[in-house]
Protein backbone atom coordinates (compact mmCIF):
# COMPACT_ATOMS: atom_id res chain seq x y z
CA UNK A 1 0.00 0.00 0.00
CA UNK A 2 1.21 3.51 -0.83
CA UNK A 3 0.05 7.00 -0.11
CA UNK A 4 -3.08 7.75 1.83
CA UNK A 5 -4.76 11.15 1.74
CA UNK A 6 -7.71 12.42 3.76
CA UNK A 7 -9.59 15.60 2.86
CA UNK A 8 -11.88 17.72 4.97
CA UNK A 9 -13.59 19.87 2.41
CA UNK A 10 -15.12 23.26 3.01
CA UNK A 11 -18.46 23.91 1.31
CA UNK A 12 -17.06 27.03 -0.38
CA UNK A 13 -14.47 24.90 -2.21
CA UNK A 14 -17.22 22.96 -3.97
CA UNK A 15 -18.27 25.82 -6.21
CA UNK A 16 -21.94 24.85 -6.20
CA UNK A 17 -24.13 27.39 -7.93
CA UNK A 18 -27.88 27.85 -8.29
CA UNK A 19 -27.44 27.19 -12.01
CA UNK A 20 -25.75 23.82 -11.41
CA UNK A 21 -28.51 22.68 -9.08
CA UNK A 22 -31.16 23.98 -11.46
CA UNK A 23 -29.56 21.92 -14.20
CA UNK A 24 -29.80 18.79 -12.05
CA UNK A 25 -33.52 19.39 -11.54
CA UNK A 26 -33.82 18.99 -15.30
CA UNK A 27 -33.93 22.64 -16.26
CA UNK A 28 -31.03 22.89 -18.66
CA UNK A 29 -32.00 26.24 -20.12
CA UNK A 30 -32.27 28.05 -16.82
CA UNK A 31 -35.94 28.80 -17.51
CA UNK A 32 -37.04 27.99 -13.95
CA UNK A 33 -39.39 30.38 -12.26
CA UNK A 34 -37.99 32.90 -9.80
CA UNK A 35 -39.51 30.97 -6.93
CA UNK A 36 -37.46 27.89 -7.74
CA UNK A 37 -34.19 29.74 -8.14
CA UNK A 38 -34.89 31.55 -4.84
CA UNK A 39 -35.62 28.26 -3.11
CA UNK A 40 -32.42 26.71 -4.51
CA UNK A 41 -30.38 29.69 -3.32
CA UNK A 42 -31.97 29.40 0.12
CA UNK A 43 -31.36 25.64 0.30
CA UNK A 44 -27.74 26.12 -0.80
CA UNK A 45 -27.23 28.69 1.98
CA UNK A 46 -28.66 26.29 4.54
CA UNK A 47 -26.61 23.40 3.17
CA UNK A 48 -23.42 25.45 3.39
CA UNK A 49 -23.86 25.67 7.16
CA UNK A 50 -24.61 22.02 7.84
CA UNK A 51 -22.37 19.78 5.76
CA UNK A 52 -19.26 17.96 6.90
CA UNK A 53 -17.77 16.90 3.60
CA UNK A 54 -14.98 14.34 3.63
CA UNK A 55 -12.98 12.34 1.12
CA UNK A 56 -10.06 9.95 1.21
CA UNK A 57 -8.01 7.81 -1.09
CA UNK A 58 -5.38 5.14 -0.70
CA UNK A 59 -3.03 4.22 -3.47
CA UNK A 60 -2.32 0.51 -3.92
CA UNK A 61 0.74 -0.26 -5.98
CA UNK A 62 0.60 -4.02 -6.26
CA UNK A 63 -2.20 -4.55 -8.75
CA UNK A 64 -2.56 -7.54 -11.05
CA UNK A 65 -4.98 -7.69 -13.95
CA UNK A 66 -6.44 -10.97 -15.11
CA UNK A 67 -7.65 -10.57 -18.73
CA UNK A 68 -9.47 -13.90 -18.85
CA UNK A 69 -11.68 -13.26 -15.85
CA UNK A 70 -11.78 -9.46 -16.24
CA UNK A 71 -10.69 -9.16 -12.64
CA UNK A 72 -8.09 -7.13 -10.79
CA UNK A 73 -6.28 -8.17 -7.63
CA UNK A 74 -5.31 -5.56 -5.08
CA UNK A 75 -3.43 -6.72 -1.99
CA UNK A 76 -4.65 -10.26 -2.76
CA UNK A 77 -8.31 -9.19 -2.90
CA UNK A 78 -9.78 -9.99 -6.29
CA UNK A 79 -12.38 -7.62 -7.78
CA UNK A 80 -14.72 -8.77 -10.52
CA UNK A 81 -14.90 -5.35 -12.16
CA UNK A 82 -16.90 -6.20 -15.34
CA UNK A 83 -15.81 -5.93 -18.93
CA UNK A 84 -16.46 -2.19 -19.22
CA UNK A 85 -14.53 -1.10 -16.14
CA UNK A 86 -11.77 -3.60 -16.89
CA UNK A 87 -11.22 -2.13 -20.34
CA UNK A 88 -10.97 1.37 -18.89
CA UNK A 89 -8.43 0.68 -16.14
CA UNK A 90 -6.47 -2.35 -17.37
CA UNK A 91 -3.37 -0.32 -18.22
CA UNK A 92 -3.06 1.02 -14.66
CA UNK A 93 0.02 0.18 -12.64
CA UNK A 94 -1.58 1.33 -9.39
CA UNK A 95 -5.12 1.95 -8.19
CA UNK A 96 -6.42 4.61 -5.83
CA UNK A 97 -9.41 3.43 -3.85
CA UNK A 98 -11.55 6.34 -2.73
CA UNK A 99 -14.43 7.10 -0.41
CA UNK A 100 -16.27 10.38 -0.27
CA UNK A 101 -19.28 11.66 1.67
CA UNK A 102 -21.39 14.78 1.99
CA UNK A 103 -22.05 13.75 5.59
CA UNK A 104 -25.24 12.75 7.33
CA UNK A 105 -26.71 16.23 7.79
CA UNK A 106 -27.98 16.98 4.30
CA UNK A 107 -29.80 13.64 4.04
CA UNK A 108 -31.34 14.19 7.45
CA UNK A 109 -32.45 17.69 6.46
CA UNK A 110 -33.96 16.34 3.26
CA UNK A 111 -35.88 13.63 5.12
CA UNK A 112 -37.07 16.07 7.78
CA UNK A 113 -38.38 18.56 5.19
CA UNK A 114 -40.23 15.76 3.41
CA UNK A 115 -41.72 14.48 6.65
CA UNK A 116 -42.99 17.98 7.40
CA UNK A 117 -44.71 17.96 4.02
CA UNK A 118 -42.27 20.28 2.25
CA UNK A 119 -41.43 17.85 -0.53
CA UNK A 120 -39.86 20.51 -2.71
CA UNK A 121 -37.36 21.60 -0.09
CA UNK A 122 -36.64 17.96 0.72
CA UNK A 123 -36.01 17.27 -2.95
CA UNK A 124 -33.71 20.29 -3.33
CA UNK A 125 -31.66 19.20 -0.32
CA UNK A 126 -31.48 15.74 -1.88
CA UNK A 127 -30.12 17.06 -5.17
CA UNK A 128 -27.73 19.41 -3.40
CA UNK A 129 -26.45 16.45 -1.36
CA UNK A 130 -25.76 14.50 -4.55
CA UNK A 131 -23.97 17.47 -6.09
CA UNK A 132 -21.92 18.02 -2.93
CA UNK A 133 -20.55 14.49 -2.94
CA UNK A 134 -19.84 14.57 -6.69
CA UNK A 135 -18.10 17.95 -6.41
CA UNK A 136 -16.09 16.75 -3.42
CA UNK A 137 -15.06 13.63 -5.34
CA UNK A 138 -13.97 15.91 -8.22
CA UNK A 139 -11.76 17.89 -5.82
CA UNK A 140 -10.25 14.72 -4.40
CA UNK A 141 -9.67 13.40 -7.92
CA UNK A 142 -8.09 16.67 -9.09
CA UNK A 143 -5.71 16.56 -6.17
CA UNK A 144 -4.74 12.98 -7.01
CA UNK A 145 -4.29 13.99 -10.63
CA UNK A 146 -1.93 16.83 -9.71
CA UNK A 147 0.06 14.60 -7.42
CA UNK A 148 0.40 11.87 -10.06
CA UNK A 149 1.17 14.37 -12.81
CA UNK A 150 4.10 15.61 -10.79
CA UNK A 151 5.57 12.10 -11.07
CA UNK A 152 4.78 11.86 -14.77
CA UNK A 153 1.73 9.61 -14.31
CA UNK A 154 -1.83 9.93 -15.51
CA UNK A 155 -5.14 8.86 -13.99
CA UNK A 156 -8.38 7.34 -15.30
CA UNK A 157 -11.95 8.37 -14.54
CA UNK A 158 -13.63 7.27 -11.33
CA UNK A 159 -15.33 3.89 -11.47
CA UNK A 160 -17.72 2.71 -8.78
CA UNK A 161 -19.18 -0.65 -7.81
CA UNK A 162 -22.76 -0.66 -9.08
CA UNK A 163 -21.98 1.19 -12.31
CA UNK A 164 -21.21 -0.26 -15.72
CA UNK A 165 -22.04 -3.82 -14.71
CA UNK A 166 -19.69 -3.92 -11.73
CA UNK A 167 -21.69 -5.59 -8.95
CA UNK A 168 -22.50 -3.17 -6.14
CA UNK A 169 -21.95 -5.98 -3.60
CA UNK A 170 -18.20 -5.70 -4.36
CA UNK A 171 -18.23 -2.64 -2.12
CA UNK A 172 -17.75 -5.03 0.79
CA UNK A 173 -14.32 -5.95 -0.59
CA UNK A 174 -13.54 -2.33 -1.35
CA UNK A 175 -14.32 -1.30 2.22
CA UNK A 176 -12.16 -4.14 3.56
CA UNK A 177 -9.18 -2.40 1.97
CA UNK A 178 -10.01 0.89 3.68
CA UNK A 179 -9.86 -0.16 7.31
CA UNK A 180 -9.33 3.38 8.63
CA UNK A 181 -12.48 4.56 6.82
CA UNK A 182 -11.74 8.15 7.76
CA UNK A 183 -14.94 9.34 6.15
CA UNK A 184 -16.97 7.39 8.70
CA UNK A 185 -19.14 5.66 6.11
CA UNK A 186 -21.07 2.57 7.20
CA UNK A 187 -21.90 -0.18 4.74
CA UNK A 188 -24.97 -2.33 5.31
CA UNK A 189 -25.54 -5.92 4.21
CA UNK A 190 -27.07 -4.76 0.92
CA UNK A 191 -23.93 -2.70 0.20
CA UNK A 192 -25.77 0.55 0.82
CA UNK A 193 -23.60 3.29 2.27
CA UNK A 194 -24.69 5.50 5.09
CA UNK A 195 -24.64 8.57 4.94
CA UNK A 196 -26.71 8.10 1.82
CA UNK A 197 -24.84 10.88 0.00
CA UNK A 198 -21.62 8.88 -0.31
CA UNK A 199 -19.62 7.37 -3.15
CA UNK A 200 -16.85 4.81 -3.41
CA UNK A 201 -14.68 3.48 -6.19
CA UNK A 202 -11.40 3.08 -8.05
CA UNK A 203 -9.21 5.45 -10.02
CA UNK A 204 -6.56 3.85 -12.18
CA UNK A 205 -3.02 5.31 -12.16
CA UNK A 206 -0.20 4.76 -14.63
CA UNK A 207 2.06 6.11 -17.32
CA UNK A 208 -0.18 4.75 -20.00
CA UNK A 209 -3.71 5.56 -18.79
CA UNK A 210 -5.91 8.47 -19.69
CA UNK A 211 -8.96 10.32 -18.53
CA UNK A 212 -11.98 9.97 -20.81
CA UNK A 213 -14.33 12.96 -20.68
CA UNK A 214 -17.33 11.12 -22.16
CA UNK A 215 -18.14 7.99 -20.19
CA UNK A 216 -21.95 7.91 -20.38
CA UNK A 217 -21.81 5.99 -23.63
CA UNK A 218 -20.19 3.02 -21.82
CA UNK A 219 -22.95 2.79 -19.24
CA UNK A 220 -26.05 0.67 -19.73
CA UNK A 221 -28.27 2.97 -17.64
CA UNK A 222 -30.09 4.66 -20.50
CA UNK A 223 -32.52 6.58 -18.27
CA UNK A 224 -29.89 8.03 -15.94
CA UNK A 225 -30.43 11.68 -15.00
CA UNK A 226 -26.74 12.44 -15.59
CA UNK A 227 -27.09 11.26 -19.17
CA UNK A 228 -30.37 13.03 -19.91
CA UNK A 229 -29.08 16.22 -18.34
CA UNK A 230 -25.94 16.12 -20.42
CA UNK A 231 -23.78 16.70 -17.38
CA UNK A 232 -20.19 16.13 -18.23
CA UNK A 233 -18.70 13.53 -15.93
CA UNK A 234 -16.17 14.89 -13.50
CA UNK A 235 -13.11 15.94 -15.44
CA UNK A 236 -9.67 15.67 -13.96
CA UNK A 237 -8.39 19.10 -14.86
Amino acid at each position, binding site marked *: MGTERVFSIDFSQLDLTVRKIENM*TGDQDGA*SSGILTDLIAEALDEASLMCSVKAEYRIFNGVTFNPAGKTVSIDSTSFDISKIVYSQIRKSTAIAIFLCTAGQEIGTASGAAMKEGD*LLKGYLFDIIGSEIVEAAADLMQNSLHKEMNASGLGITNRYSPGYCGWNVAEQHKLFSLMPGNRCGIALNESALM*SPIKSVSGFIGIGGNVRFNPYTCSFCDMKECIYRSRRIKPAAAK
Partner: protein
Amino acid sequence: MDDILNRLARCVEYGKTDKAASYPPDMKGQDGADELAKQALEQGIKPDEILEKSLVLAMAAVGDRFTRKEIYVPQMLMAARAMNAAMKHLKPYFQSGETKRKGKFIVGTVAGDLHDIGKNLVAMMVEGGGWEVIDLGTDVSTEKFLKAIDENPGAVVGLSALLTTTMENMKKTVAAIREKHGAMQILVGGAPVTMDYCKKIGADFYSPDPQGAVNYLRQFGA
Protein backbone atom coordinates in the same frame (compact mmCIF):
# COMPACT_ATOMS: atom_id res chain seq x y z
CA MET B 1 -69.71 24.68 -11.58
CA ASP B 2 -67.40 23.64 -14.41
CA ASP B 3 -65.80 27.03 -14.40
CA ILE B 4 -64.65 26.89 -10.80
CA LEU B 5 -63.51 23.27 -11.16
CA ASN B 6 -61.54 24.16 -14.28
CA ARG B 7 -59.95 27.10 -12.55
CA LEU B 8 -59.07 24.91 -9.58
CA ALA B 9 -57.58 22.29 -11.88
CA ARG B 10 -55.49 24.94 -13.60
CA CYS B 11 -54.21 26.20 -10.24
CA VAL B 12 -53.18 22.68 -9.23
CA GLU B 13 -51.59 21.88 -12.58
CA TYR B 14 -49.49 25.03 -12.53
CA GLY B 15 -48.79 25.04 -8.79
CA LYS B 16 -50.79 28.10 -7.74
CA THR B 17 -51.22 27.38 -4.04
CA ASP B 18 -53.13 30.42 -2.83
CA LYS B 19 -53.86 34.03 -3.65
CA ALA B 20 -50.73 35.27 -1.88
CA ALA B 21 -48.45 32.96 -3.91
CA SER B 22 -46.43 34.83 -6.51
CA TYR B 23 -45.95 31.63 -8.51
CA PRO B 24 -46.74 31.16 -11.34
CA PRO B 25 -46.14 34.81 -12.30
CA ASP B 26 -48.99 34.94 -14.84
CA MET B 27 -51.50 34.01 -12.11
CA LYS B 28 -50.26 36.55 -9.59
CA GLY B 29 -53.04 38.13 -7.51
CA GLN B 30 -55.61 35.52 -8.55
CA ASP B 31 -57.31 33.04 -6.26
CA GLY B 32 -55.33 29.83 -5.85
CA ALA B 33 -56.15 26.20 -5.07
CA ASP B 34 -56.79 27.02 -1.41
CA GLU B 35 -59.45 29.68 -2.06
CA LEU B 36 -61.06 27.92 -5.02
CA ALA B 37 -61.51 24.60 -3.21
CA LYS B 38 -63.17 26.44 -0.34
CA GLN B 39 -65.42 28.37 -2.73
CA ALA B 40 -66.36 25.20 -4.58
CA LEU B 41 -67.54 23.60 -1.33
CA GLU B 42 -69.43 26.77 -0.42
CA GLN B 43 -71.16 26.59 -3.78
CA GLY B 44 -72.41 23.15 -2.79
CA ILE B 45 -70.19 21.11 -5.08
CA LYS B 46 -69.66 17.67 -3.56
CA PRO B 47 -66.15 16.89 -2.30
CA ASP B 48 -65.87 13.77 -4.47
CA GLU B 49 -66.77 15.85 -7.53
CA ILE B 50 -64.08 18.37 -6.63
CA LEU B 51 -61.63 15.52 -6.26
CA GLU B 52 -62.60 13.63 -9.42
CA LYS B 53 -63.46 16.43 -11.80
CA SER B 54 -60.71 18.80 -10.83
CA LEU B 55 -57.86 17.64 -8.61
CA VAL B 56 -57.38 14.13 -10.00
CA LEU B 57 -57.56 15.42 -13.59
CA ALA B 58 -55.03 18.14 -12.82
CA MET B 59 -52.58 15.72 -11.22
CA ALA B 60 -52.99 13.28 -14.10
CA ALA B 61 -52.08 16.09 -16.51
CA VAL B 62 -49.04 16.87 -14.35
CA GLY B 63 -48.01 13.20 -14.30
CA ASP B 64 -48.37 12.90 -18.07
CA ARG B 65 -46.29 16.00 -18.67
CA PHE B 66 -43.62 14.60 -16.35
CA THR B 67 -43.63 11.29 -18.25
CA ARG B 68 -43.22 13.22 -21.51
CA LYS B 69 -40.35 15.14 -19.85
CA GLU B 70 -42.10 18.48 -20.43
CA ILE B 71 -41.80 19.27 -16.74
CA TYR B 72 -39.43 18.08 -14.05
CA VAL B 73 -39.65 17.06 -10.42
CA PRO B 74 -39.85 20.63 -8.98
CA GLN B 75 -42.89 21.53 -11.10
CA MET B 76 -44.50 18.26 -10.09
CA LEU B 77 -43.86 19.06 -6.43
CA MET B 78 -45.27 22.57 -6.80
CA ALA B 79 -48.43 21.04 -8.25
CA ALA B 80 -48.56 18.68 -5.27
CA ARG B 81 -48.25 21.64 -2.94
CA ALA B 82 -51.28 23.27 -4.59
CA MET B 83 -53.15 19.97 -4.49
CA ASN B 84 -52.51 19.75 -0.74
CA ALA B 85 -53.80 23.28 -0.26
CA ALA B 86 -57.08 22.18 -1.85
CA MET B 87 -57.13 18.79 -0.10
CA LYS B 88 -56.95 20.51 3.29
CA HIS B 89 -60.60 21.52 2.73
CA LEU B 90 -61.66 18.06 1.58
CA LYS B 91 -59.91 16.04 4.30
CA PRO B 92 -62.73 16.38 6.88
CA TYR B 93 -65.13 14.72 4.41
CA PHE B 94 -62.73 11.81 3.87
CA GLN B 95 -62.24 11.46 7.61
CA SER B 96 -65.97 11.40 8.32
CA GLY B 97 -66.44 8.77 5.61
CA GLU B 98 -68.82 11.04 3.66
CA THR B 99 -66.42 10.92 0.72
CA LYS B 100 -64.51 7.82 -0.21
CA ARG B 101 -61.09 7.45 -1.82
CA LYS B 102 -60.51 5.02 -4.65
CA GLY B 103 -58.72 2.56 -2.44
CA LYS B 104 -55.62 2.14 -0.32
CA PHE B 105 -52.10 2.02 -1.66
CA ILE B 106 -49.38 0.72 0.64
CA VAL B 107 -45.93 1.83 -0.48
CA GLY B 108 -42.39 1.45 0.81
CA THR B 109 -38.75 1.14 -0.17
CA VAL B 110 -37.63 -2.44 0.42
CA ALA B 111 -35.39 -3.75 3.22
CA GLY B 112 -31.79 -2.60 3.17
CA ASP B 113 -32.54 0.37 0.93
CA LEU B 114 -32.74 3.97 2.12
CA HIS B 115 -33.68 5.70 -1.14
CA ASP B 116 -36.88 7.65 -0.65
CA ILE B 117 -37.23 10.43 -3.22
CA GLY B 118 -38.60 8.24 -6.01
CA LYS B 119 -40.92 6.40 -3.64
CA ASN B 120 -42.18 9.72 -2.23
CA LEU B 121 -42.95 10.97 -5.73
CA VAL B 122 -44.93 7.84 -6.48
CA ALA B 123 -46.81 8.15 -3.15
CA MET B 124 -47.62 11.77 -3.90
CA MET B 125 -48.91 11.10 -7.41
CA VAL B 126 -50.98 8.10 -6.33
CA GLU B 127 -52.53 10.27 -3.63
CA GLY B 128 -53.18 12.87 -6.28
CA GLY B 129 -54.92 10.11 -8.22
CA GLY B 130 -57.50 9.86 -5.46
CA TRP B 131 -56.02 7.01 -3.40
CA GLU B 132 -55.31 6.88 0.29
CA VAL B 133 -51.60 6.26 0.65
CA ILE B 134 -50.02 4.36 3.51
CA ASP B 135 -46.33 5.18 3.28
CA LEU B 136 -44.22 2.71 5.25
CA GLY B 137 -41.02 4.66 4.60
CA THR B 138 -37.64 3.20 3.67
CA ASP B 139 -35.82 0.01 4.67
CA VAL B 140 -39.19 -1.72 5.07
CA SER B 141 -38.98 -5.35 6.15
CA THR B 142 -41.18 -8.03 4.63
CA GLU B 143 -42.91 -8.39 8.00
CA LYS B 144 -43.81 -4.71 8.01
CA PHE B 145 -45.31 -4.97 4.52
CA LEU B 146 -47.28 -8.06 5.55
CA LYS B 147 -48.57 -6.38 8.70
CA ALA B 148 -49.76 -3.33 6.74
CA ILE B 149 -51.48 -5.59 4.22
CA ASP B 150 -53.23 -7.48 7.04
CA GLU B 151 -54.40 -4.19 8.52
CA ASN B 152 -55.67 -2.87 5.19
CA PRO B 153 -57.50 -5.63 3.36
CA GLY B 154 -58.06 -4.94 -0.32
CA ALA B 155 -55.13 -2.54 -0.57
CA VAL B 156 -52.69 -2.50 -3.48
CA VAL B 157 -49.01 -2.61 -2.61
CA GLY B 158 -46.08 -0.79 -4.23
CA LEU B 159 -42.39 -1.60 -3.71
CA SER B 160 -39.43 0.57 -4.65
CA ALA B 161 -35.72 -0.39 -4.86
CA LEU B 162 -32.74 1.55 -6.17
CA LEU B 163 -29.91 -0.95 -6.00
CA THR B 164 -29.46 -4.34 -7.63
CA THR B 165 -28.64 -5.78 -4.20
CA THR B 166 -31.87 -4.53 -2.66
CA MET B 167 -33.83 -5.80 -5.69
CA GLU B 168 -33.10 -9.20 -4.16
CA ASN B 169 -35.01 -8.10 -1.07
CA MET B 170 -37.82 -6.91 -3.33
CA LYS B 171 -37.97 -10.42 -4.73
CA LYS B 172 -38.17 -11.94 -1.23
CA THR B 173 -40.91 -9.54 -0.14
CA VAL B 174 -42.96 -10.17 -3.29
CA ALA B 175 -42.66 -13.93 -2.73
CA ALA B 176 -43.79 -13.61 0.89
CA ILE B 177 -46.75 -11.41 -0.07
CA ARG B 178 -47.76 -13.88 -2.80
CA GLU B 179 -47.55 -16.77 -0.42
CA LYS B 180 -49.75 -15.12 2.17
CA HIS B 181 -52.07 -13.00 0.03
CA GLY B 182 -52.21 -14.81 -3.30
CA ALA B 183 -53.53 -12.62 -6.05
CA MET B 184 -53.18 -9.19 -4.49
CA GLN B 185 -51.87 -6.48 -6.82
CA ILE B 186 -48.16 -5.74 -6.45
CA LEU B 187 -46.47 -2.86 -8.28
CA VAL B 188 -42.70 -2.40 -8.44
CA GLY B 189 -40.36 0.38 -9.54
CA GLY B 190 -37.01 2.11 -9.06
CA ALA B 191 -34.05 2.89 -11.33
CA PRO B 192 -32.58 -0.61 -11.86
CA VAL B 193 -35.97 -2.43 -11.94
CA THR B 194 -37.37 -3.52 -15.32
CA MET B 195 -40.54 -5.13 -16.65
CA ASP B 196 -38.59 -8.36 -17.15
CA TYR B 197 -37.52 -8.36 -13.53
CA CYS B 198 -41.09 -7.59 -12.45
CA LYS B 199 -42.33 -10.65 -14.31
CA LYS B 200 -39.48 -12.79 -13.05
CA ILE B 201 -40.25 -12.09 -9.40
CA GLY B 202 -44.01 -12.48 -9.86
CA ALA B 203 -45.10 -8.88 -9.36
CA ASP B 204 -48.02 -7.59 -11.43
CA PHE B 205 -46.78 -4.33 -12.85
CA TYR B 206 -43.65 -2.27 -13.33
CA SER B 207 -43.67 1.42 -14.10
CA PRO B 208 -40.61 3.55 -14.80
CA ASP B 209 -42.45 6.63 -13.53
CA PRO B 210 -45.20 7.61 -11.06
CA GLN B 211 -47.92 8.30 -13.63
CA GLY B 212 -47.59 4.80 -15.07
CA ALA B 213 -48.45 3.47 -11.61
CA VAL B 214 -51.41 5.85 -11.30
CA ASN B 215 -52.72 4.84 -14.72
CA TYR B 216 -52.40 1.15 -13.90
CA LEU B 217 -54.27 1.63 -10.62
CA ARG B 218 -57.28 3.10 -12.46
CA GLN B 219 -58.64 -0.37 -13.11
CA PHE B 220 -58.76 -1.15 -9.39
CA GLY B 221 -60.40 0.49 -6.44
CA ALA B 222 -63.79 2.14 -6.15
